[in-house]
């Protein structure tokens, strides 16, 4: 583990064995990450014949501009509907999470009230209950509201159980000086005005974090839409892609195209928002 000096470099020496091994390990790790993805991308450009002939998976496609698999995946896989449903769910659950999380954090941090300890304990203990374990009973609750097989079921579930975002808002709101509130209060603002006009706008960085984390986890979630929205026309991108398993069976070129279609938006978001995403996940998971 010989590495060059931390952050500030002094004289550049000849690379030692340690440095070479370090780079080698990084290159191997990168290949392990990229190879399976690259192969799927290559397969998505091949024709059915090329895939089924049983050539190795690592051969290159004959025609690099063969996008017909993407057309098949997009149309026959109902991907447009899936992206629509996912967008609908994303819009409502993210808006809800931001409002609920920031309101909760505001109430807990800025007010003294009876049972405050109890309320905090309720939120705290809830972090310990993993969502997957209670799904059998949660299902009955959703069912009794008549929300089963509607897009509102996942929306409510995503909004209702997101304690991570409450933590992020709480951490952030503590950093906003109380004197800001006091000044507004002297000018006659009530609690709601203070929240709406002062606290909420100041929370922007935290909101960005929550939107990114929530957006990515919601976009990728499989479990909840799979259990709560079995109808074909309610597919999200996860469940729509999962259904490729049936009709496209051994058509790996179509399945690969579908997988690439789902991965590309994530890749674009990642490339454009890299720094925020790292920070977001580092904040989100440790709280």
């Amino acid at each position, binding site marked *: 583990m010989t590495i060059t000096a931390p952050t500030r470099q002094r004289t550049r020496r000849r690379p030692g064995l340690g440095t070479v091994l370090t780079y080698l390990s990084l290159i191997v790790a990168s290949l392990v990450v990229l190879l*399976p993805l690259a192969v799927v991308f290559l397969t998505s450009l091949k024709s059915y014949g090329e895939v089924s002939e049983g050539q190795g998976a690592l051969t290159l496609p004959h025609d690099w501009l063969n996008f017909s698999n993407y057309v098949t995946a997009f149309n026959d896989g109902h991907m447009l509907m899936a992206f629509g449903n996912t967008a609908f769910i994303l819009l409502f659950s993210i808006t809800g999470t931001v409002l609920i999380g920031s309101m909760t954090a505001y109430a807990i941090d800025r007010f003294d009230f009876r049972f405050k300890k109890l309320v905090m304990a309720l939120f*705290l203990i809830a972090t310990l209950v993993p969502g997957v374990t209670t799904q059998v009973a949660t299902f009955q609750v959703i069912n009794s509201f008549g929300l089963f097989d509607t897009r509102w079921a996942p929306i409510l579930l995503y909004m209702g159980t997101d304690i991570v975002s409450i933590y992020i808002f709480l951490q952030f709101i503590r950093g906003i000086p109380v004197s800001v509130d006091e000044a507004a209060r002297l000018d006659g603002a009530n609690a709601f005005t203070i929240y709406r006009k002062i606290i909420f706008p100041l929370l922007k960085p935290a909101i960005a974090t929550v939107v990114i984390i929530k957006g990515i986890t919601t976009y990728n979630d499989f479990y909840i839409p799979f259990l709560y929205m079995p109808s074909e026309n309610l597919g999200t991108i996860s469940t729509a*892609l999962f259904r490729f398993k049936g009709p496209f069976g051994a058509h790996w070129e179509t399945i690969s195209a579908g997988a690439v279609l789902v991965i590309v938006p994530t890749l674009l978001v990642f490339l454009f928002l890299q720094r925020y995403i790292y920070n977001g996940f580092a904040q989100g998971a440790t709280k």
Partner: protein
Amino acid sequence: MTKTVSTASPPAQAPLSGRAEKRRSRHEAPGERSWRRNALRRATPWLFLLVPLALLVTFTYVPVGNMIYYSFTDWDGISPDRNFVGAENYTELFTRPELFRVFAVSLYYLAASAVQIAIALFFATVLSFDLRFRNLFKGILFFPYLINGVAIGFVFLYFFQDGGTLDSVLSWFGANSDHAWLGSPESANTSLAGVSVWRFTGLNFVLFLGAIQSIPGELYEAAQLDGASRWQQFRNIIAPGIRPVLSLSVILAISGSLAVFEIPYIMTTGATGTSTFVIQTVKLAFQFNKTGLASACAVVLLAIILLITWIQRRLVPDERVDLV
């Protein structure tokens, strides 16, 4: 990060109530007015908390309560009648070894978590120093964590196929394997656990990296002046600095290994001995309509996870107390 909370209201209220005093004397009976103001002030935090608490109770506490209740009944999830059967579901769960055997599968994922944490720790340490293409490597290592689970499932189904990527790569190195990677329980579970390493190492890596970078740089300089080796620096500066994150990762790894669902369900639907506890619970509840038994399973899983969390809190007490 502790802070005395909400010393906000008392100082701010003083001038306000003074103003209210003057106005009150002009308009109405003093008692009534101040009572109303007081009630409003007291209700304010609750108005903010109304919706969050309602959702929290409805989707966390009611299900937990119901689940415990269902676990003592023979309910099938649909019919209106459910009979109280006492601890029958629990005896069934603990006496039918095939129901409990799925926990053995968790061991594969537990081993995978150890590998995953070790790899993440190595690369986080390496990449927290100045290196060429540092950001590129960082991005590549983290990206898998952001990819959709279903897409990952398909990518690796193809990867493990006969004559697929893995076989092709192995044949370059002269190892001509006609191994059916997902064919036998041992190799299928090892393969699936490998996928989980591929997928989740990036998250641990980013967490560790963040923790290492929050260690002040002067510490390294001082250590270097004292002639400390790289290993000594890691041992005495980095390791203690990231201890809280490391202990969090361990607890997430253990509870995560018990609650694996997505990848094995997508790739094998739990066939060839890859069924996990959650897959089995979901099948019992939603395919075989054994809501009672499934609830008992879920209660056992929840109890185990809470127990592990509690033990971890005892062993590694957290310096910071979250939530105020």
